[in-house]
């Protein structure tokens, strides 16, 4: 127990120091480095949010791009009328509400049906929005005019990523988190144990979706204009899923570990060899399933324990 407390304090101190250092990065680095970090934080926040719901419940969602895109569009529409912070808040709220409606009607689908449904959802929203813009608004894209600096975007996304990790860790400690994991273990048993599974699932699904919408809205500040195919790009859904599974969904910090190599890989490959990036992404999927079922987290924890246990034994022997 004391050991656990000490570990938790150590982790908290480490997180605090790391975040202060990271917050100072923009003042010492070039624009390029900053943009890589911005992409990294966005991916970390998305992967953590994905893992918070899908990792725990094993409902594999491919709707990340849908909520991300909704965030982008809410910002693109709202920033004309209200201030940017208000537009960001609106994105998070609308993402939450949409997920609430979607969740209530679909979370009784299991397994493959849910996967396909969420994939279809992105396409559906994409098509309907595109149609709406062309037919009703007679436009195909929207311009985004803001004077938000890159530094502000950087700090906002860093904060969003941190809050998502800490929040996901915190929820895992309380009743809601236990209920969520119980559903992932066996939904029928969870229901018999008195858990209102629908409520738990829908709330957590909506929480995770509101983070996705928020991240989309913040990233949209960097775009000069958006259209439906930029906003609802399915690559986001896949990349986020891979990042989370590569990192491992068992711990709150797992997806963040997975996002780092993936963002770097996409940064180096996607620009010059986009097709090879797609092949690498595909091989990642296969490698994870056959060789890394628990993700990098399990690997890290195993290494840590194999280093730690002999030390503990030595200390006990003394």
């Amino acid at each position: 127990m004391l050991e656990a407390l000490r570990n938790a304090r150590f982790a908290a101190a480490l997180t605090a120091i790391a975040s202060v250092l990271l917050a100072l990065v923009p003042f010492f680095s070039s624009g390029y480095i900053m943009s890589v970090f911005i992409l990294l934080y966005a991916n970390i926040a998305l992967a953590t949010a994905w893992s918070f719901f899908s990792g725990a419940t094993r409902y594999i969602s491919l709707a990340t791009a849908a909520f991300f895109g909704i965030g982008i569009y809410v910002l693109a529409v709202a920033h004309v009328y209200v201030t940017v912070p208000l537009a960001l808040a609106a994105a998070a709220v609308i993402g939450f509400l949409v997920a609430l409606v979607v969740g209530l009607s679909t979370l009784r689908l299991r397994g493959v049906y849910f996967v396909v449904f969420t994939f279809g959802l992105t396409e559906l929203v994409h098509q309907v929005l595109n149609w709406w813009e062309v037919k009703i608004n007679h436009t195909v894209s929207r311009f985004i005019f803001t004077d938000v600096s890159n530094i502000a975007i950087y700090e906002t996304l860093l904060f969003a990523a941190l809050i998502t990790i800490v929040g996901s860790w915190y929820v895992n400690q309380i009743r809601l988190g236990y209920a969520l994991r119980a559903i992932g273990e066996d939904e029928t048993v969870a229901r018999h144990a008195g858990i209102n599974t629908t409520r738990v699932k829908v709330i957590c699904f909506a929480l995770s979706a509101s983070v996705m919408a928020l991240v989309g809205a913040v990233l949209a500040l960097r775009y000069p204009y958006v259209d439906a195919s930029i906003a609802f790009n399915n690559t986001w859904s896949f990349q986020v899923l891979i990042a989370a599974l590569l990192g491992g969904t068992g711990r709150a910090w797992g997806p963040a570990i997975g996002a780092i190599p993936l963002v770097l890989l996409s940064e180096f490959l996607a620009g010059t060899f986009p097709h090879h990036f797609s092949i690498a992404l595909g091989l990642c999927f296969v490698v994870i399933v056959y060789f890394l079922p628990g993700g990098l987290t399990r690997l890290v924890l195993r290494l840590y324990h194999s280093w730690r246990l002999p030390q503990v034994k030595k200390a006990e022997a003394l």
Partner: protein
Amino acid sequence: MVLFEVFINGIILGGMYGLIALGLNLQYGVARILNLSYGEFFVSGAFTAFFTIMLWQYNPLLSLFVSLPIAFAVNWLIYQYLMIPLIRRAPDQDALDADVVLVTFGLFFVFQGLALVYWSGDLRGYTFLSTPVNFLGATIATNRLLAFLGACVIAGLLFLVLRHTRLGAALRAITIDPVAAGLVGIDVRRYSALAFAAGGALAAASGMLVSTFISFSATTGVAYTLKALIVVIMAGVGRVTGTLAAGILLGVVEALGGYLIDPALTIAINFGLFMLILLLRPTGLFTRA
């Protein structure tokens, strides 16, 4: 009268959907493996036909002699060497499904990436049998009619094999209950591999037939995977014989919806129908509850 023509066109279109979905239903229904890289075999069948007519100036139908055996062999290998280890280690169908979804998505990315590298992302197409004919009072192109007839013939053959041969009886037994099928002496793994491979070969065949009238590129595969999956879920997983009917229903709804509402919304109408069926009848239209 225009409405009638739209209706006939919907049936022809739906026949094509049914054809594409037949192979997937063999893979998912019998072998219980949801192959999300299915559309890539469709695309490779289309590309083989394209190269056969454009590079070597042969009848594209001849390309089937190449693409069918290759697709069959590749799918057989996928089942034997990638799926069997997963089936062995999975504690239940849910866990297996999650693994299979990931691996076949991975294969989809790998195949599509390879296709983009070697065949480029350009839209391809060729003209073959594009003369219009009169069919029940509606004017349609011969190649579309050929694909429709191809769909009917393949579905009919499959029906005969499934209903009237020992092989068919074994496959149906596996569809209903793989464990019980094993208990009565059916080599479940061998027949599942066979069904999976045959499904892949059907994907290539449908790709060839459809490529005569719809242009395609290395990235169009996923759209057909999804459409096939919609049809399979509409028909009911494992309901091989209902697949063609479900495809035709989807085609008619899509054609009428596009005509009556807006052609730009066909995909939305597609997914709308799909979601409705998922929510109201998740076991499919042609299964007994």
